[in-house]
């Protein structure tokens, strides 16, 4: 024990570590391992057949592709929203600030129904988009819209505090050295924001992968076209195919884990280059 325990004036290291491990086991690890154990009922061949059917493969592409695209869009526009909220003063700013959290607080089914009503062919927005050739509701595009909606707060809320902490002196210093606004942003501000932006992106991405409620309403759920993996899992559960459902879960879990690990590594790498003193 004493080999890696450092002496500290803060008491309770053993107790705190023990509790943390127990808590994580109970809340995270045991439920997750249950999925693996359940999957173990299958042979490798059965497992491989279930997780690689064309319908399932299409759903992976859709889930991860739409989530990635939505997180990317959120990273760009979330940064913009955070920028406006931090840098400018305008009437109703507090209200706009509160609005950002709405996708977070809203039951996802409500969001799904609302978005579907808006983007359907007879909806407020859909009636204008459809004649122009954009069909949003009941297509992969609709899924992308829903995932963008629910992911926005993650980017805004992670970037905002970091942006608030950037001293105006840095920008002033860049200006006295002859940099224009664009150079100041790309060379000074953006690198400082990048780690936070990556965190926000990762959170929005992770949230989108797991999203179910808002998507099923707007997706139309057509096999091979607009069917997400979580929906397939539910379908299998409803057919009492527990092993098949957990097999898909395990695949999603592993892919998500790998993706988040990559993002974390990127983040660690970029943060290492710019640690605060």
């Amino acid at each position, binding site marked *: 024990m004493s080999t890696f325990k450092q002496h500290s004036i803060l008491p309770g290291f053993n107790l705190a570590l023990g509790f943390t491990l127990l808590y994580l086991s109970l809340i995270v690890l045991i439920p997750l391992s249950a999925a693996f154990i359940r999957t173990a009922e299958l042979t490798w061949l059965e497992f491989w057949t279930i997780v690689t059917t064309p319908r399932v493969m299409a759903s992976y592409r859709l889930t991860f592709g739409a989530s990635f695209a939505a997180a990317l869009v959120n990273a760009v526009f979330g940064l913009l929203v955070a920028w406006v909220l931090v840098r400018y003063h305008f009437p109703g700013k507090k209200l706009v600030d509160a609005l950002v959290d709405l996708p977070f607080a809203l039951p996802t089914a409500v969001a799904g129904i609302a978005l579907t009503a808006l983007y359907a062919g007879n909806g407020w927005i859909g009636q204008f988009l459809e004649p122009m050739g954009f069909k949003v509701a009941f297509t992969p595009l609709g899924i992308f819209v829903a995932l963008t909606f629910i992911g926005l707060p993650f980017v805004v809320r992670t970037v905002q505090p970091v942006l608030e902490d950037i*001293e105006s002196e840095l920008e*002033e210093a860049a200006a006295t050295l*002859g940099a224009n606004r664009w150079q100041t942003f790309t060379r000074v501000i953006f690198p400082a924001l990048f780690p936070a932006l990556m965190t926000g992106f990762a959170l929005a991405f992770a949230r989108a992968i797991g999203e179910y409620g808002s998507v099923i309403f707007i997706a139309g759920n057509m096999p091979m076209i607009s069917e997400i993996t979580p929906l397939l899992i539910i379908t299998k559960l409803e057919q009492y195919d527990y092993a098949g459902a957990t097999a898909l879960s395990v695949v999603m879990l592993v892919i998500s884990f790998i993706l988040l690990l990559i993002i974390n590594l990127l983040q660690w790498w970029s943060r290492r280059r710019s640690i*605060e003193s």
Partner: protein
Amino acid sequence: MSIEVLNLSKQFGSFTALHDVNLQVHSGELLALLGPSGSGKTTLLRVIAGLETADSGQVLFHGEDATDQHVRERQVGFVFQHYALFRNMTIFENVAFGLRVRPKKFRPAEAEIRDRVMKLLHLVQLDWLADRYPHQLSGGQRQRIALARALAVEPKVLLLDEPFGALDAKVRKELRSWLRRLHDDMHITSVFVTHDQEEALEVADRVVVMNEGRIEQIGTPDEVYEQPASPFVYEFLGNVNLFHSRLHRGRAWIGDIEVDAPDHPEAEELTAVAYVRPHEIEVERTRNGEAVLAALVVHVLSVGPIVRLELVRKNDVDTTPIQVEISKERFRELRLVKGDEVFIKPRRLDLFPNHHNRTSDAVQAR
């Protein structure tokens, strides 16, 4: 390059930061803006840099109006109190920043950038830190890098905002004399802001003392210390003793002591305050028949070559202690101990009529 500031005023809400300020900075000099916090010194510096715009007035660089010029075009080097180094860049890239952001046709070749940056790092004696990041440096090193970065763009003037304010006392002192030597080598017109009078007096060619958005006095360190133009400057620069006195037709009285007051020939029965520096008070054991003030020694501090005495006047309602500084030799002659009675007389004093009955402003009276 000379800097000229004409009738500059600046208001932050109801707070007046600058009140009709006029200032001349001569080409190649090192000027200190000295004042307590809230005196407007930093605002003045930022207006000169173009980081702040004044409500009215002009800033001239070398006789040319620069009031409406953007910071980018003013070619000023600015050093911030908290360094403002770019965290995500190495020390080398920090210094190279000003060269790299230049438009393509004015940007030096990579080899030349390398050359110039290394020269500057050598100048600030930190070339061995080129590949480090700012968080790996000490405060003093960071400020020297900030200075190198400001110098990289070959600014016409160098502006420093409390450059040593965030450093500890020892590093402060070192950097102070280092800055002075650097300035002597480069002769770039420089203005620095400080609230530390010792720093201003030690480093600057001329000192501008500011208070409440106005300039109280401009002069060499010697002038502002030896001939303060106002009670404020007297009290802000160094220790000073205040004596109540009476002023009448060119004569003044402190207790029984009568002195000439040639600056106030027209004064009629005014009360005034006499300002006397601690080292300009004579101390005697006996009266010698002269008019003197009797006092008691209440404290003796005899560390170093100067002995500091704290006296209290006898038979007087005025109980504020009087600070006196005498040399160690004189102290040995007098053999003073706590409780001794002494007789004192100011060698030199400045009189400022009290504000409530003044006939002329204290500043003009000199």
